[in-house]
């Protein structure tokens, strides 16, 4: 089982199943008979929303557009329509909901951009991610600390002191995460300036974004393992108090 890449090449035109007229792929309703169009193999959430491929998005505007399109597609309004229109409404609504979910969140928005720009997904393919080079030092340090804390906990060390240690071990990771978020924002802004840039420049920005997403997953995993350790320190602390 492999994850299915989003098709990069949407078909160029749609055919209206009601009147047979052709329509551009980003149209939702037939320009000729105004019936809802069946969803083609659409792959681009930005153009589905009628938005340019930009990463900095006005959330309120996105939300308005979502409500507006929902009002046009929702199956509630096609109850009396022909079967093909009902199916089209169901597919378009589902797709709209998927698209909104992806675009609403800045990180999944970047993931989607990478996919439609033809980059491999920013996920470890086999689950055994190797440490991103930019994080080697922090990871090494943290794992050492976690091992020591775990050992000390198992041999009955003072939970309060261990919690303090864990807290200070967490600090550099938190800092890294904040720094990381700033970098993602800066790269996103840079991408949005790229309308006249060369393909190579664009590609470099995308590669950098992808690198950041891999790092981000890694940082989140580190924070999760710190949280897990913190939790195993909790019950002991309670029974003392």
């Amino acid at each position, binding site marked *: 089982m492999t*994850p299915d890449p989003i098709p990069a090449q949407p078909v160029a035109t749609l055919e209206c199943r009601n009147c047979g007229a052709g329509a551009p792929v980003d149209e939702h309703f037939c320009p000729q008979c105004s019936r809802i169009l069946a969803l083609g193999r659409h792959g681009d959430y930005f153009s589905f929303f009628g938005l340019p491929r930009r990463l900095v998005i006005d959330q309120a505007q996105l939300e308005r557009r979502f409500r507006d399109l929902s009002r046009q597609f929702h199956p509630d*309004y096609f109850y009396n329509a022909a079967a093909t229109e009902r199916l089209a409404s169901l597919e378009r609504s589902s797709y709209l*909901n998927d698209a909104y979910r992806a675009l609403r969140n800045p990180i999944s928005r970047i993931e989607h951009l990478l996919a439609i720009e033809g980059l491999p997904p920013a996920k470890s393919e086999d689950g055994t991610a190797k440490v991103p080079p930019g994080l080697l030092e922090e990871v090494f340090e943290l794992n050492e600390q976690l091992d020591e804390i775990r050992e000390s906990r198992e041999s009955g060390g003072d939970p309060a002191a261990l919690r303090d240690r864990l807290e200070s071990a967490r600090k550099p990771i938190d800092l890294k995460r904040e720094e990381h978020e700033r970098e993602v924002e800066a790269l996103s802004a840079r991408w949005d300036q790229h309308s006249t840039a060369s393909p190579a420049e664009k590609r470099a920005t995308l590669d950098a974004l992808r690198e950041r997403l891999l790092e981000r997953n890694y940082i989140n995993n580190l924070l999760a393992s710190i949280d897990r350790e913190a939790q195993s320190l909790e019950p002991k602390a309670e029974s003392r108090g």
Partner: protein
Amino acid sequence: MANVVGIDLGTTNSLVAYVRDGVPQVIRDASGDALVPSVVSLGEDGTFFVGREAQRRLLTAPSRSVYSVKRFMGRGIDDVRDEAELLPFRIGGEVGGVVRIGLDDREFTPPEISAFVLRELKQRAEDHFRAQGEFDFEVDRAVITVPAYFNDAQRTATRDAGRLAGLEVLRIVNEPTAASLAYGLDRRDRGIIAVYDLGGGTFDISILKVEDGVFQVLATNGDTHLGGDDIDRLLMELVLRELDGSREQDPSHAVGRVLHSRPAEDIQAIRKVVIAAKHDLTDVEETEICLDSLDYRRRITRGEFERLIRPLVERTIQPVRQALADAGLEPAEVDEAVLVGGSTRVPFVRRIVSELFGRTPHSELNPDEVVALGAAVQADILISGRREMLLLDVTPLSLGIETMGGVVSKIILRNSTIPASGREMFTTGVDNQTSVDIHVLQGERELANDCRSLARFKLRGIPPMPAGLPRIEVRFQIDANGILSVAASELRTNIAQTIEVKPSYGLTDQEVERMLIESFEHAQADIDARLLIEARNEAETVINATEKTLRRPDFSEIASVDLQPGERGKIESALERLKQAMGGTDRDAVRDLTHALNHATQHLAEVMMNRGVREALAGKNVKDV
């Protein structure tokens, strides 16, 4: 065009509502009662009773009467064994299959029992439309509500029940969302709404964002086994422990066994009085639980009641916090909290909700009726195509499939706006393999064993190819009802796959078809049962009126002045004969004896009317003086 209604198919009570001229209203019976108890009882002669009549029979024929069947919808015997012990009716079924309810020598699935309640509501609505003088009074389509936290199997079971009752189910709508529609009608402004819905058997919390007439659910959570029934059960246990003090010492004695050591009639009698006490404690600080038949009597204060139910009510807190977290909101960001469900009448529940959201919750609309009103609004939106309001709901549970090692791979995450779709690619593990097994699950846990099994599919007709070469795309579609459908195709050859669905806890289409045919076969018996109920209701009205007159302190005087000799005796014997017939199921006898009593009291009625007129005139004279 026939009529469309909204139905709240509740654990304890059900209601039906409709929209006229943009205004939703619930349909009441002649006595003004909107609630139809969700109780079904099988008469000794094979006829069925539904609603009030069936509720009465809980006391006289408990083993032939089913209540709270909603708790068993879409569930397996292994899910419900614990609570089945407490019920007077038989619960059975194969392990891994749907629950079967035994009444007399017949067996029913929960959708079949629910269909009786739905038919009753359909009938009630048709009677109402007929009485309104509508030419086409038939009701053939409905929106039916379910708890937001219902899974796919529970939703499908509800839809099956609708089909069995002869209704096209236009939409399955979540109860809290429906309630928000009813509330939103006259306040179409913007804001964040939290709907806290504690009903007879289920708890839901939904967080909605309302803007421009779009009611968008941000997150939902709940517990499909938490409600008023559980409060009743705590009180019943309290009474049983006190009735049976010695066994309290023995912790090995499960309550179920204590219950079973008593006749079902006793259990139902206890249930009836503790429910009355619960209702009392909404308005007064102290009340009495009184059971003459068991020589039991005790006072209970609201404080004592609250200590008893606190752990239950507190089980609603975690789902509320989770829903808020999933919506990315703090409690203070909620603009309005709305109470739905009969159990939110309990003052302690209101206090908990106030504390959770830091504000007094809304309860302007009757918490029993608001869901049905919302269902009617949604039905009206669907058939009218009007677009002022739109409801965007979510799927309450993540959908996934079992992968290697029993781990669940999530395909559609919980709180995704519906309709929602997902895709997953499969391939083969062996050369020339032509089928693949797929196990679909719902739930948040990582392991398949901890999630709810929805169905097992077998993908067939894969073209023979070397292992790993086929690219089979399986598409999952959750529709606006929150119900899943699956389609698959092999992408290399573009061959669509046959999917054989075996719902884990549901009925196959064939089973539903068979039940439909059976229900037609029983239709005559059902009509007979209805006619009997109508005859009884009429009889009851005449009996009550007669008894009321006979009880008057001045009746002896009236009798001696205005009645002929022997007339009183005739009336009393006609009354007695009718009351005896009421105990049986002979409809003709009930009808004839009702006429007889009517006839016997005709003169008395005239006398009483004349006296009434005289008294009124006399009163007027006095005042005029």
